[in-house]
């Protein structure tokens, strides 16, 4: 079966849906984090695919931006998770519930 651009779109949609469902259903902060990364990369994939379809390199530029931002976000997010683990010895997001007064 030849691979055409539509396949990329569906793959991207699939990855994004997995990401959303994961973020919604899991309670482990690290898993949620990974799901968010998955969504970001689904968007990256979509951008690259469209870039290929329309023969426009602008979209690829966005991809690099998103990667950089994602890297920064990971650094901050992981640091928060590490601190959270040190305090409460858990990465369950429902524990964060306790922050409310």
């Amino acid at each position, binding site marked *: 079966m030849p691979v055409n651009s539509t396949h990329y779109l569906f793959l991207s949609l699939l990855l994004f849906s997995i990401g*959303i469902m994961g*973020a*919604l*259903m899991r*309670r482990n902060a690290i898993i*949620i984090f990974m799901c968010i990364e998955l969504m970001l990369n689904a968007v990256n994939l979509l951008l690259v695919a469209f870039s290929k379809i329309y023969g426009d390199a602008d979209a690829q530029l966005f991809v690099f931006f998103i990667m950089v931002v994602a890297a920064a976000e990971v650094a901050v997010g992981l640091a928060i998770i590490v601190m959270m683990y040190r305090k409460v010895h858990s990465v369950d*997001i*429902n524990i*964060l*519930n*306790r*922050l*409310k007064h």
Partner: protein
Amino acid sequence: MGNFSQLVYLVPLFPLIGFLVNGLLWKRMPKNLGGIIGCVAILASFVVSLGIFFEVKGAGFQPQTKVLFDFIKSGDFYIPLAFQVDALSSLFLLIITGIGFLIHVYSTSYMHHDEGMVKYFAYLNLFVFFMLLLVLGANYLVMFIGWEGVGLCSYLLIGFWFKNKDYTNAGKKAFIMNRIGDLGFLVGLLLILFNFHTLSYYEFFGQLHGSQTIVSTTTYNWIAICLFIGAMGKSAQVPLYTWLPDAMAGPTPVSALIHAATMVTAGIYMIVRSNALYDLAPMALDLVAIVGLITALLAATIALYQNDIKKVLAYSTVSQLGFMFLALGVGAYTTGIFHVMTHAFFKALLFLGAGSVIHAMGGEQDISRMGGLRKKLPITYFTFLIGVLAISGFPFTSGFVSKDEILMAVYEHNKLYFYLAATAAVFTAIYMFRLLMLVFMGGFRGTEDQEHHLHESPAAITIPLVVLALLSLLGGLVQLPHLFGGHDFLNEFLAGAKIPAVVHEGAEATTKELTLLAGTVVGLLIIFIATRKLFAVKQFEGNYTGFKKVLANKWYIDEIYDAIIVKPIEALSNVLDKFAEKKGIDGIVNGVGKTVKWGGERLRLLQSGHVGFYIFIMVFGIVVLFTLSFFWIR
């Protein structure tokens, strides 16, 4: 002569510099240095003013307008900050800086024990600056700036001893009363601007003299009356005069400079400056005369039974200002200016003399506790005597000549006015001699401590007194009637600024002049003997009864104003405070706060802390927005 009129900007500049130096450094400035800076600034202005005066007096001088910079410029509307150099302004420059300088010198001694002396000099210099701006301005706006500025300085200096609540209240009263008048002035300016599209004297008067009549006499009357309301406030005329007697709360030299010699004559200056307008507004001119006459009489009767040395002089000032307005009202503009000048001499002298007495009495102002000061304060007594003679119109003193001219001019205008004005002049002589007798003659009525403390004032106080006494004696010579070998120097000088004069010539004038002279001499003699019998010999009667009590209580004018104006306004503001403020405005403000608090307490429940729930809401929201944008909002 040098070209002094080119340097006219220096005249107000020196006091401004003096104000800035003293005002910015008043906490660190040594007292003596502050006083010297204040005096030198005014002296420098005086020297330049002298130069300008002689240049203006010289042959072939034309009135000039010096533009310093553009003040307001917008399309056709143009108001520069410009100075007018002509006979009228140069004469006022001399009065302001000359008498101002003497009073500054006097103040160096009088205020020496006061901790705020440098601040005092800063205010005084600022006052002189604004006063110079007022008389130098070449358009009504510059005059208005100076007008408001002197009002401010008057307020600052009346309340100079601000730790005393009565004094600050007096300052507030002066400021508010002036504000009422200033509103009239401002309306007048706007009317001029609306009808003539200019505020410059030159253009405005040019349009008045032009052949084509642009506006009706009614409009002229309204403009002139509005301007006169401003003059009523500033120059303390009925009904806005009650601030001036209270303004005596300020230091005595301030009363001499601001509330006798210069600021209160600003209204007269303004009307003389606008004489072309008033000539076209007969109704307004009548009003000026009537208000002046009423003021002269009313204030003179009040002054008869005042026991505070400065209050007597204050009411006397109000009364004399009334005389000046009366002169303007009958069209004798130069005579009004002449009386401004002589009054500046003798009233400054009287106030400074009173200051010297108060100084010697250790702050006592009640004349019922004075008496017999003649021997202890010989120089003060002698100069004060000259001042009293001058203001009462003793023949050939300055006051005689100027008041005589006013009475002559009034006589030709309206006989009834004349008799009333003459009555006021008689009252003037009575209350001044009463003051003289009570303060300087008879026996001392104060405490032993005060008697022990009595001393003649130092040279810085007596020298200005002597100079002013000489001026009060000889100031009349500039306009001595022809009958006595004089010449109308002042009229000729002021003709350069196109100010009309009323000239008295011929046999009839001579008869009247001689009658007035004889009347004055006889009258003064009677008054002198009577007051001597009444006040100097007998013990002072403390409590007044009957009509005297009404006069001693100033016709209850303050009480009447209090009852019909102040009290209702206070009641209204109390009602507004209770209902509009507490319930209305506070209710709205507090209501907004309460609503937000109530809403916040309910919305807070959404923040459950369940991260999963947040994400779900976010995704749900995105899906909804996406769907909406996809199907409906294209």
